C-alpha cells in the first residue's frame, strides 16, 4: 500500500493531527527543557564535586567514547518504546553481531559487516512478525529471541570470546584504531553514533517511520485513520535490530574481538536511558534526542561516581534510585 492508497478522509485526519500537534510540540519542548535542566544540573554538580575534572575536554571525550555502543543501542530501544513495546533482545543482537562480524572476517569486511547486520535484521524481523501478526506481547517475544540470540552466539564461539574468523584472520589493524582516532576532537565511534542518530531521525521522517508515534499512541485509532499499522510496527522492529547490530560492530572494534556475553546489561540500561530521557513507556511520545541525553546523563553519573571514588559495588544503587526518581517526576508531571 502506498501513500496514494490512503483514503482522503484519513489524509485529512492526519492533517488535523498535524495541526493539533503544534500544541503538543510546545508541551514536548517544555519537557525537553526540563530534561536539559536535569542534564545541566548533573553536569554542574558533577563539575563542582570533581573540581572541574568532569568537564575537561579529554574526560568528556572519554565518556562519549566509552558509551558509544549504548548511544547506538538506545536509538533501537527508543523506536520500540515509542511503538508501545520493549526490546529485551538488543543486547543479544549486539553480542550476535559482534560474534558474526569477527567470525566472518576472513571473507573480508565486504562480507562480514553485511553478515553481522543481516543477522540483526533477521532477529528484528522475527520480533516484528511475532509482535505484529501473532500479536504476542513484545516483552516476552524479545525475551525469547534474546535467549535464542545469546545461545546462537555462544554455539558459534563455543562459549568464549572469538578473536579470529574460520581461517584465522583477525580484525585488520587499521580498524582497531577506530576507537583511538579523533576528528574535530570527537572520537570516531561517537561520529558513527551521531551518523546513526541522523539516519534514525530520517527514518522517523520517512513515509513509514513518521506513523510510528501515531501507532504507539493509539494503534486502534491509527488503524481507523488508515495507517498501515502492521507494516509500521514490523519495520520499526527490523530497523531497531539493525541499529542494535551496528552497536555490535562498534563493540567488536572497541575490544578487538567478538563476545557472546556482550551487552548483557544493554537491554536494561537502554530502557533506563530512554525513561530518564522522558520517553513515555506507554508509547507514542518522546523525542529521539532525549534518549541520547538520557544516555549522556547515565554516562556522566557513572563518570562522576568513578571520579569521586564511589565503590563499583554501590554504583547500581545510585543508578536504580535515579531511574525510579526521574520516572516518578515525569509521571507526576503528566498527571
Amino acid at each position, binding site marked *: 500500500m502506498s501513500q496514494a492508497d490512503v483514503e482522503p478522509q484519513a489524509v485529512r485526519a492526519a492533517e488535523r493531527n498535524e495541526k493539533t500537534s503544534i500544541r503538543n510540540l510546545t508541551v514536548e519542548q517544555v519537557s525537553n527543557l526540563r530534561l536539559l535542566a536535569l542534564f545541566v544540573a548533573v553536569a554542574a554538580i558533577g563539575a563542582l564535586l570533581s573540581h572541574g575534572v568532569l568537564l575537561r575536554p579529554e574526560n568528556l571525550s572519554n565518556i562519549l567514547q566509552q558509551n558509544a555502543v549504548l548511544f547506538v543501542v538506545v536509538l533501537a530501544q527508543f523506536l520500540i518504546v515509542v511503538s508501545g513495546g*520493549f526490546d529485551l533482545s538488543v543486547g543479544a543482537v549486539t553480542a550476535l553481531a559482534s560474534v558474526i562480524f569477527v567470525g566472518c572476517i576472513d571473507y573480508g569486511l565486504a562480507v562480514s559487516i553485511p553478515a553481522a547486520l543481516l543477522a540483526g535484521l533477521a532477529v528484528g524481523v522475527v520480533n516484528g512478525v*511475532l509482535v505484529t501478526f*501473532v*500479536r*504476542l*506481547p513484545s*516483552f*516476552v*517475544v524479545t*525475551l*525469547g*529471541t*534474546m*535467549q*535464542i540470540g*545469546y*545461545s*546462537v552466539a*555462544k*554455539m558459534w564461539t*563455543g*562459549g568464549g570470546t572469538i578473536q579470529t574468523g574460520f581461517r584465522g584472520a583477525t580484525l585488520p589493524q587499521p580498524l582497531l584504531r577506530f576507537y583511538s582516532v579523533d576528528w574535530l576532537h570527537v572520537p570516531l565511534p561517537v561520529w558513527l553514533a551521531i551518523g546513526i542518530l541522523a539516519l534514525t531521525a530520517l527514518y522517523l521522517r520517512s513515509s513509514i517511520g513518521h506513523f510510528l508515534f501515531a501507532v504507539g499512541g493509539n494503534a486502534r485509532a491509527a488503524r481507523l485513520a488508515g495507517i498501515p499499522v502492521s507494516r509500521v510496527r514490523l519495520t520499526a522492529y527490523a530497523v531497531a535490530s539493525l541499529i542494535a547490530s551496528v552497536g555490535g560492530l562498534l563493540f567488536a572494534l572497541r575490544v578487538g574481538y567478538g563476545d557472546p556475553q556482550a551487552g548483557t546489561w544493554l537491554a*536494561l540500561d537502554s*530502557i*533506563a536511558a530512554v*525513561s530518564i530521557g522522558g520517553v513515555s*513507556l*506507554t508509547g507514542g511520545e518522546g523525542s529521539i534526542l532525549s534518549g541520547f541525553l538520557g544516555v549522556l546523563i547515565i554516562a556522566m553519573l557513572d563518570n562522576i561516581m568513578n571520579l569521586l571514588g564511589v*565503590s*563499583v*559495588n*554501590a*554504583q*547500581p*544503587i*545510585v*543508578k*536504580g*534510585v535515579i*531511574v*525510579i526518581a526521574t*520516572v*516518578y517526576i515525569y*509521571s*507526576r508531571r*503528566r*498527571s
Partner: protein
Amino acid sequence: MTTPPLRALSNYGQVIAALLLFAAAALTEPAFLTRFNLTGIAFQYSVIGLIALGQLPVILTACIDLSQGSAIAIAAVVLALTAPVLGLAGASVLAILAGGAVGAVNGLLVSFTRIPAFVVTLGTMSVGRGLALTLSSGQPIPVRDPAFMNLVRLRFFDVPGTFLVFLFGAGLLALLLAQWPVGRAVYAVGGHEENARLTGLNVPKVKILVYVLSGLTAGLAGVLLTSRLGTGHPLSGTGYELISISAVIIGGASLFGGIGRVSGVVAGVLLLGILDSMINLSGTSPYLQGTIKGVVVLAALAFSQWNLSRAAAR
C-alpha cells in the same frame, strides 16, 4: 461448544505437555531416570519454581517483578552476614524477611505512584544488586555449618525436601488463589483494575501483598541457594527473574493479567527442568539450551494466544 476432553486439553495443555516430555525423556535417555539426575533437576528447579510461584500472582495483577534475582542475592548476603550473630535459624528468617522487604518497597511504589511496575522493579533490581554487593564488599561470604548445608540435602521417602517445599507451596498458593478473598481479588484486579476498584476492592493492598509474597519466595530461594553452596553470594540469582517469568508464561498466564493458574506454572517449571536435563544428557552443545528455551517460550505463548482467541470466539 468443545467436548470436555478437548477443553481439558486446552486447560491443562501444559501439564499434559510436561508429562509427555517426562515420558519421552525417560524412554530415550537411560540416564534420565537415575536418582542423581532427578535430584539435580529437582533442586535447581525447586528454587526456580518457588520464585515462579511468587511471580504468578504479580503477573495475575498485570504487573511484573524484575527484582526477584536481586532479592535472592540480598537474602543470601543477609543470611551469611547475620548467621554468626543470630544463629542460622534466626538469620534465615531475617533473610526471608529481607526478601519480603524488597517486595514491600516494590508494592508501595507500584501502588502509590504512577511509575510503571516494569520501571519500579527494574530500579529495585539495580538497587538490590548494589546493596547485596555493598553489604558483602563484592565477595562471597562462607556459611560453613554442616547442619545448615545439609538442610537442602534432606530427603523424605527419597524425595528431595526442596521439591516437597515447592509442591507444598504450589498447593498452598492454589488454595489461597481459589478460596481466600484476597486471592480472588488478585484475579479481579488483573482482569480489570478500574472495575475492581469500583466494586470496593482495596487495589493497593492486593498489589502490595502480591509483591511481598514474591519477595518472600525470593528470600526463601536465597536461603536455599546459600545452603546448597555453603556461601552467601552477592551475584546469586542473577537472571533468575527472567526464568521465573518464562515459567509463568509457559504455564499459560497472560502478561495482561487476570489469566493463569498454579498447575500451569508447576508444569512450566517442570517443562523447563526436563528440557534442561535432556539437553545436558544428550551431549549436544550446552549453549543450545537458550535456543530451545527461547523457542519453547515463544511456542507456549503462541499456543495460549491461540487458546485465548478461540475462547473469545466461543
